[in-house]
């Protein structure tokens, strides 16, 4: 078996979670690589939509940002951001979207706004951008975050992007949110779903060589573990070949993520 890096197994796990999907809302970095991998493997019809208003992009290089000029030249469609947010996202066309954040709680609510008090923050983070509405409207949310106790917290300092709220079944619908919320949390050590009796983060798979205790050590609440805990299937040789030869040959995003992870 080939060796692989933590970011590579995050990429392959994310790609596989998109099997059969057709329309994904994507940012730069790992999600972008994961989507392109999915398109070449488990989701051949997958359409990548960027919040900058473009889809059907055929970039001649790895995009440097979600507004990269390379995404526009030769794309199928480039629309205004009003159209993008109103007609595509709020319009219900986005089947799956990726989010990350600085903090996540057990119900998949996300914070990317501040650490500390909102008015007098210890660390001012970027804020919502598109995340709040992506979390509300995309039919499914996949979350990619490296596992860390600082990030997987009991209580968020700020709710930027609503997940399953207080964990009451049906809470999202009651609050008026069309999307079904977070489906997976994909980390560098393990994968979680929200498939238990209540929509709470549940460990369903640990990556090869990772013990459950290592996962628990990086999560602030007592783990909910699925009855049939699996070992994550490692990246296949073909997946690694596509990632390394085609999707990120310069290791721009994999390196970065590996340093963080």
């Amino acid at each position, binding site marked *: 078996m080939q060796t692989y890096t933590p970011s590579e197994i995050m990429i392959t796990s994310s790609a596989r979670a998109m099997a059969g999907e057709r329309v994904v809302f994507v940012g730069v970095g790992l999600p972008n690589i994961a989507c392109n991998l999915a398109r070449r493997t488990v989701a051949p019809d997958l359409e990548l939509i960027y919040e900058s208003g*473009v889809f059907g992009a055929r970039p001649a290089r790895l995009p440097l940002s979600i507004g990269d000029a390379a995404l526009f030249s030769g794309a199928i469609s*480039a629309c205004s951001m009003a159209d993008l947010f109103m007609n595509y996202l709020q319009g219900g066309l986005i089947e799956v979207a990726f989010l990350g954040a600085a903090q996540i709680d057990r119900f998949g609510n996300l914070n990317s706004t501040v650490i500390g008090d909102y008015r007098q923050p210890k660390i001012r983070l970027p804020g919502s951008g598109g995340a709040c509405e992506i979390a509300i409207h995309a039919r499914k949310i996949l979350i990619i975050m490296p596992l860390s106790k600082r990030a997987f917290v009991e209580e968020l300092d700020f709710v930027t992007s609503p997940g399953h709220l207080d964990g009451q079944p049906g809470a999202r619908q009651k609050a008026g949110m069309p999307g079904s919320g977070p489906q997976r949390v994909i980390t560098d050590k393990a994968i979680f779903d929200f498939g238990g009796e209540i929509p709470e983060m549940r460990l369903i798979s640990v990556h090869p060589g990772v013990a459950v205790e290592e996962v628990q050590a990086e999560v602030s609440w007592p783990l909910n573990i699925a009855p049939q805990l699996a070992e994550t299937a490692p990246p296949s040789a073909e997946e690694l070949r596509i990632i390394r030869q085609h999707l990120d040959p310069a290791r721009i995003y994999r390196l970065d993520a590996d340093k963080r992870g």
Partner: protein
Amino acid sequence: MRQAIAEYVHDGDSIAIEGFTAFICFSAAHEIIRQRRRNLTLCRMTPDLIYDQMVAAGCASKLVFSYLGNPGVGSLHCIRRAVEKNVPNPLELEEYSHFGMVSRYLAGAARLPFFPLRSYYSADLAQANPRIRFIQNPYGDEQLAAVPALNPDVAILHAQRCDQEGNTQLWGLIGMQKEVAFAARHVIVVVEEIVAEEVIRSDPNRTLIPHMIVDAVVHQPRGAHPSYVQGYYDRDNQFYVEWDRISRDRSAVENWLDEWVYSLDDGRAYLDRLEAGEADIWERLAPGEAYSQPVNYGIYG
């Protein structure tokens, strides 16, 4: 540019230099810094490096925004210093999501007092920002969020081309340029090329900003550097990365502002300095050619 900024941008004004990743008119921002405007309310979905520089230069007292980041690189350190440490001065934040800002511009353009959107349910932003409100759907029992119209005093919008009158065409990442132009009380358009009216007339669907809302036209080629203009030049990503380093250190920022803004007369001097430092910069950023296939509008008559 000097004249346009002097005439339309005043201390205390709210201004929007928009453009999502693309079309960011740094040359206008530098002129505003040079003219030492103060107490501006800076509106932009993504403050980006451009407002990081303006905040560092002390031009701003308030930021209206939806995402604070150096896109693809990291944090905006000058703005963080202002927010976290009140340096060089306190900076009030009025924060939305992207869709919230988009909706504010839409309402502003249409002279609606607000715009409805399905958002902010159970999110803390509506608590943090009391201007986000909720309204009743008159056709059902659900609630919708509302954001108020945003009508900046001045919008400065970069584009590929316009005619002498200011009829402006842009392509690529059109973002919110059109809506911001209609929302603003005054509009300054900055373009790569001023073209003959016949060029504009050959493709009327591409005209997004009409002359009747344009107060000033500035011809400032490469005036969006280090951001990009589709088909004219690429983003100078080296500078975006370098700014991450410079902006971490307040005195480095001050030196940079001295060197690249205060000590220069205008946008032309900025380009001269860029080219002096890197003779083939425009070759490095040259995009090559990929032309749209023409469409026939026909002749009727």
